[in-house]
């Protein structure tokens, strides 16, 4: 799937971006696949960009395309289907259901469309050190544990693009390495593209492209 950004400028960032150079805002940008790193300081619009790419926000100039399709003009059923099968995301604020257990939060995605078996998912949880928390309500997990649950939830569905918004921000070095390895493995298996947005430069993945907002 090709992600195309045609001169996108979020409405709320128009004035600030007028005198600020960017590789993304207002530019013609076509992403074919591979690992893309979006680097920007706080407030530059990383989360806004990820939400625009995921089709959540339409309050911007320009157009976004998933192949030939514009999410902002797509009917609800098609957009929902594509979110379940083509584009997956780890939200910066995680967006778990606090009342559901870790396992149920992941199962919410698995019931839509799944590219992993239950066995795979349990193994992934084990790799990330949250297996023992699978029956605990998300509200009782630490932020780092919730972050790992959100990562597994994003990986269980089939996808052509994986969007990661500061996905390892609350993980210690060891857990981060485990998470990075898992994400890399699954992305490679799916032959998918990934876009990671973060504050600072990093070498989590062998990026083919780095964009500064």
């Amino acid at each position, binding site marked *: 799937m090709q992600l195309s950004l045609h001169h996108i400028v979020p409405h709320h960032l128009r004035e600030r971006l007028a005198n600020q150079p960017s590789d993304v805002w207002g530019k013609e940008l076509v992403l074919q696949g591979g690992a893309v790193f979006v680097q920007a300081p706080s407030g530059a619009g990383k989360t806004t960009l990820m939400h625009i790419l995921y089709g959540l926000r339409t309050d911007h100039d320009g157009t976004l395309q998933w192949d030939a399709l514009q999410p902002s003009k797509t009917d609800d059923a098609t957009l*929902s289907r594509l979110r379940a099968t083509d584009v997956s995301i780890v939200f910066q604020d995680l967006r778990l259901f606090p009342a559901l257990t870790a396992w149920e939060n992941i199962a919410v995605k698995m019931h839509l469309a799944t590219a992993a078996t239950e066995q795979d998912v349990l193994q992934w949880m084990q790799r990330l050190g949250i297996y023992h928390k699978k029956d605990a309500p998300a509200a009782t997990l630490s932020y780092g544990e919730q972050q790992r649950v959100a990562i597994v939830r994003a990986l269980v569905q089939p996808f052509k693009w994986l969007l990661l918004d500061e996905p390892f921000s609350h993980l210690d070095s060891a857990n981060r390495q485990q998470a990075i390895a898992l994400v890399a493995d699954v992305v490679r298996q799916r032959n998918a593209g990934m876009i990671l947005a973060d504050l600072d430069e990093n070498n989590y993945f062998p990026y083919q492209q780095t964009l500064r907002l």
Partner: protein
Amino acid sequence: MTEAAKNIIAGTLQPNGRRRVVAAAAVLFVGTTLLLLSILAWTDLTHMLGGRQEQQGQSSYVVIGKQVTEQSMGREPASFSAQEIKDIAHAPQVQDVGAIVPARFPVYATIGGRLAMATDLPVAAVPDRFIDSLPDRWNWQPGDRALPVILSSQFLDIYNYVFAPGQRLPQLSRTSVRAVALRLQAGHENPLVLSAYVAGFSDRINSLLVPMSFIEYGNDAFAGGGQNTTSQLILRVNDPSDGAFNTYLQQHGYTTDPQNLRWSRMRTIVQAVASATGVFALLLMGISTLVFMLFAELTVARSQASLVLLRQLGYSAAVLRRAILMRFLPMAATAMALSVVVCCGIQVGIAHIIGESGLHLPMVPGWQYWAAFATSSLLLWLLLARAVRRAIR
């Protein structure tokens, strides 16, 4: 969607307090029950009040005439024209019309033996299909010496309970009356003298009935021929207490048994009360539907954050709407099914009690009951679906 998926979606929604769920279901139950009970009350009353004759599977017979007023007194006896008879045939409830043709010649009867009496008699004829139970040999032809007659039951009652005690005469049973020999004289000049016998009794017509051929012969021979007049009509009607039928009679100045009119008025009043109860029940049903919808909307509103997240994760609005509706279905279905069962039970009880009084009511509610239930269920479901659709766009 799998059961597990439904459960997980249900788990993401904010749970309603048990009390709130029970209260919403109870309100729906009460509203539906009152609606169904009012329908039952209406149909049962209609059945009992309107079904006096239907219960026996037969129609009623009503005799009507034209009102005799101060203005009409002294003129020719009021009679029905052919057009009036045609119009009456199309009046509400009327199934058949027959003319009561009176004799336009005097008929004088003499009884010998112990009874020993002589009297003028009111004689008339009606088409055979209007006679209660037609005697075997109900015919007369010129030249016949014997004439069968049908006596009004009221005549016999008047004789037995009013006339006989005062005259020190014996009371007569129906069988003994059949054995009494009557000498019947028709006309003044060159009268025709016949031997008459009582062939049967009539509860419908207060005249001495004779075969139509005798009246036609007599009117022709002793009254100078001409057109037979029709001063009274006998009507076969489905429901003599029907309001429209009685209104028709009143508007046209026709007289009939005042009992029908009283019965009709009573039925109108009772039906008005039942209808008012129905309107009240309809209002309550509307309120209970509204309460249930508000409960549903509240549930959706409380779960708005979860629903938004589910949509962000890839659940379509249609899938979520279906899941939410399915969440309310068991509760609504249980409340309404319980109403149906309770009301059916009440109907069985009422039918049993009424049955002990010799009246009949169906054990199973009529189609109006089921139609009301289906309509209210459908309406509730449509309104609920609309509310959920508006909440999850």
